């Protein structure tokens, strides 16, 4: 078997999985087996690609359709950054699937077949984005991802979900159609190609004055990166069931946005062009603003998922900052942060969902003393929080460290921003486990719900095990961050 076959297989397996899930919808246990098989098989295919790319330095390619648009093939190429993003999505998919089964059944959700079908489609789209060999292919899968996640966001089919869906589609489609597509067309007419190439394709084709504008079209065109002020869709998307928030709105979808920005910076502009022209200067400030503002707003949110959503907005801006710095350490730190933030944030969302399933609580102010009933969940929450803050020995500390290194070269002020942001993270995340473990349950709640409020323990096993796994992952990333950086290093060398 060669690498092209593995690319096809990795793309087709989630697609086939979606089909099988749809066909077996009447028998939930068979259906869930299909999801599990598809997610594990996809992971196997992606893992199979790792040695070739990471150790041998190959770039497996596959052309599915010549000239999908004139001069633009529907083509895939596996390079380190894409491989990392694909790995993050596919490693977490089986874990989330297990969690989703526990959550959806525990929370008595309806339309579970549609849910699992769209979930598999979203993974398919994410892999397409990860492996896209040119901007045309990337745009195709970017839109597939938007559309396949719409039914997930509006899953409840209530008026609230409908409104959230409008914001979701409104922002994501508007930015991609008006800004991203325009940027891509502009790139095509000036550079004459849309292929991702090391060192970029724009150098020498575009006047220095246009660089900030084009970069702006890309940065805001990738609305999934939730750069302020186009971040509103992300908190709105939290009406979705928690597994969706966990895998898609902390990992696959939002990372697709920052991944696209990183990829455009590295392979379309090229670091040299950005450094020479200073065209990304303004983007650093926007990212810094988003980092601080996101954290500030997170403070004000009592709803746990909303707080996590704003935290995500801030954390995504770390990666945008790394891209905008356009220094080797900035890019590596940004890439690494895709992985470390993914594992940390998915843990926090898993915990939020587990709390909802077990205790039906959404607000932080109601969670006093919850740690006694749910010690594993709240312990995992604590671990995930540490990783987000960037405290050793958690993976998040390395990516923050590398981003700070990237800023040290001429933009030291952003080190200050990163440090301040860490403080803010401590401020809005750590009180939650503290309240859960050390505060007594509020009496009015005990009265309000009667003694039944205390009758619950941990969430179902299928919810608790995944969140323990990802919490362990936060720890593991601290020790394996080196390998990830080595994988990414070709991005900034040569």
């Amino acid at each position, binding site marked *: 078997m060669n690498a092209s076959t593995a690319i096809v297989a990795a793309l087709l397996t989630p697609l086939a999985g979606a089909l099988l899930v749809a066909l077996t919808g009447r028998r939930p246990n068979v259906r869930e087996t299909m999801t599990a098989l598809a997610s594990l098989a996809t992971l196997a295919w992606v893992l199979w690609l790792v040695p070739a790319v990471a150790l041998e330095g190959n770039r497996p390619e596959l052309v*599915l*359709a*010549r*000239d*999908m*648009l*004139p001069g633009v093939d*529907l083509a895939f190429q596996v390079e380190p950054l894409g491989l990392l993003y694909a790995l993050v999505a596919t490693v977490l998919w089986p874990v989330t699937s297990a969690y989703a089964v526990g959550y959806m059944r525990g929370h008595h959700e309806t339309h579970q077949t549609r849910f699992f079908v769209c979930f598999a489609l979203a993974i398919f789209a994410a892999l397409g984005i990860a492996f896209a060999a040119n901007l*045309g292919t990337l*745009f*195709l899968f970017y*839109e*597939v991802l938007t*559309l396949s996640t719409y039914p997930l966001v*509006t899953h409840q*089919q209530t*008026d609230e*979900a*409908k409104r959230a869906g*409008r914001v979701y*589609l409104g922002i994501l*489609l*508007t930015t991609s*159609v*008006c800004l991203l*597509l*325009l940027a891509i*067309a*502009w790139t*095509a*007419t000036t550079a004459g190609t849309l292929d991702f190439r090391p060192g970029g394709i724009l150098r020498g084709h575009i006047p220095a004055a246009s660089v900030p504008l084009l970069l702006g079209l890309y940065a805001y065109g990738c609305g999934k990166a939730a750069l302020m002020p186009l971040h509103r869709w992300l908190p709105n998307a939290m009406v979705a069931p928690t597994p969706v928030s966990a895998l898609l709105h902390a990992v696959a979808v939002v990372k697709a946005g920052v991944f696209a920005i990183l990829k455009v910076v590295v392979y379309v502009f090229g670091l040299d062009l950005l450094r020479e022209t200073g065209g990304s200067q303004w983007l650093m400030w926007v990212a810094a603003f988003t980092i601080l503002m996101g954290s500030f707003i997170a403070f004000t949110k009592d709803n746990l998922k909303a707080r996590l959503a704003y935290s995500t907005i801030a954390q995504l801006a770390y990666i945008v900052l790394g891209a905008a710095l356009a220094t080797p350490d900035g890019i590596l730190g940004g890439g690494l942060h895709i992985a470390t933030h993914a594992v940390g944030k998915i843990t926090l969302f898993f915990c939020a969902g587990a709390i909802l399933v077990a205790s039906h609580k959404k607000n932080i102010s109601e969670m006093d003393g919850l740690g006694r009933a749910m010690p594993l969940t709240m312990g995992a929450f604590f671990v995930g929080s540490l990783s987000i803050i960037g405290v050793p020995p958690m993976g998040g500390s390395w990516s923050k460290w590398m981003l700070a290194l990237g800023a040290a070269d001429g933009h030291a002020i952003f080190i200050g921003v990163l440090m301040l942001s860490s403080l803010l993270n401590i401020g809005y995340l750590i009180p939650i486990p503290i309240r859960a473990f050390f505060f007594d349950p509020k009496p009015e709640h005990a009265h309000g719900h009667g003694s039944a409020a205390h009758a619950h323990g941990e969430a179902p096993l299928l919810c608790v095990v995944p969140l323990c796994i990802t919490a362990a992952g936060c720890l593991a990333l601290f020790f394996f961050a080196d390998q990830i950086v080595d994988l990414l290093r070709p991005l900034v060398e040569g």
Partner: protein
Amino acid sequence: MKEQLPVLVVVVPLLTAPLLVLLRAPAAVRILSLLAAAASTAAAVTLALTVEAPISYHLGGWPPPIGIEYRVTQATAFVLALVTTIATFSLLLGARGTRSEVTNGRTHLFYAAFLLCLAGLLGMVVTGDAFNVFVFLEISSLSTYALVAMGRRRRAFTAALNYLILGTIGGTFVLIGIGLLFQMTGTLNALDIARHMTQAEVGGTRTVQVAFAFLVVGFGIKLAVFPLHQWLPNAYAESPSAVSSFLAGTATKVIYFQTMRALLVLFGASYVFGTLRFGLFLGVLSLLGMFAGSLAAIYQTSLKRLLAYSSIGQVGYLTLALSFGSEAGTYAGLLHMGAHAITKTALFVVAAAIVSGVGTDRIDALAGLGKRLPLCAFAFVLGGLGLIGVPGTAGFVSKWALLEAALADGHLGYAAALLLSSLLAVVYVWRVVEVMYFRQPPPDAPAARGLRGYDWGALGPALVLMVASILLGVWSSPITGYVRTAATQLFRGGL
């Protein structure tokens, strides 16, 4: 046999039409009309696949410019194949829908008019003779008026009358324009006229300018260019399902092709876009049409009417492409013509399937369709995505071509307007989607009826067209390559 194909494409439906009137028996009429359309499609597709150098067919053996010449180039063959295919699909879907819509023993008349209309449209495309264009224009127009008037509701009569009046004005203008050209050049053969136009004593005269104005306004009415579009929404919305899907995919498209040929072949691109500077005028009208049509579509309360207003917006895209006056623009225009023909026909066919399931096309009545007729609702979503121009559909390939054509000429404003107006498409499509999926079905609505509950005669062709649109959106290179050579030929004045 093979050298007779250019004329057979037109003659088969033209001669079958009177046969149907004699035959009368509804079942036989249905089968025969379908066979005629299929035969015509086969001829057109064969032509499209085999044509390389332009084929010149001399009617009755009289050589041009005295005799009438039929000319098949890659561009004409492309349009012929498109029109015949859509006609066949519309006839396929007609079976159940038309049976309920066209009653009182008028079935044979309906199908006869349908085939006449098809013959008229095909004749306009294939002929290389200016007067012949007018003759076929009238054949198709008159039969269209009759077809529209056969709609189920009484409002169909006013729609038909409206269209009749405006269409006749348009037709007359075209005739006057052709007459003036004949006066100046002494010939009716299109290529011959074009040859005369290059001479200063012909091309520079006021008469030619007036002829240009008459032709442009005449075709503009039939094309429903903003603000000459008033006839279109009613005509599309009130006519029987088979007719609206057929008209939406062919009528304005054929006229668009005629307009292209008039501008690029008869008058020549350098005269129209250089001497007359027609590009800016057409461009502004196109923008107005794009936004007015799409905005109006947002506020419609009936599905067919919504699709009709969306067509006015799409005509704006087409004329915008033409207004660039460039080869890239011609390519984009031809491509979008094809892509939109497929998409819009598919959507009208879905609308037909919905009407035969729900009984009405009021958008309010579609509440909960996602539960009642999930396949219909899903097909509408797919078609809507094509209309928006989401990547992976044929609509995106042509939108991309439009965008590239706009940017290549430095029309940044046009490019931005194109993208903005496609957002309006998101709004009017999603409005329907929300009704279908988020609103509870009315309590008295029948429950889901499984696969048997569908009007497969309509839904089947619709799904085929949707799949075609998606396949063409990914594996587009055979079509885009073909259209590019056709556009090059057309832009350089080749007919």
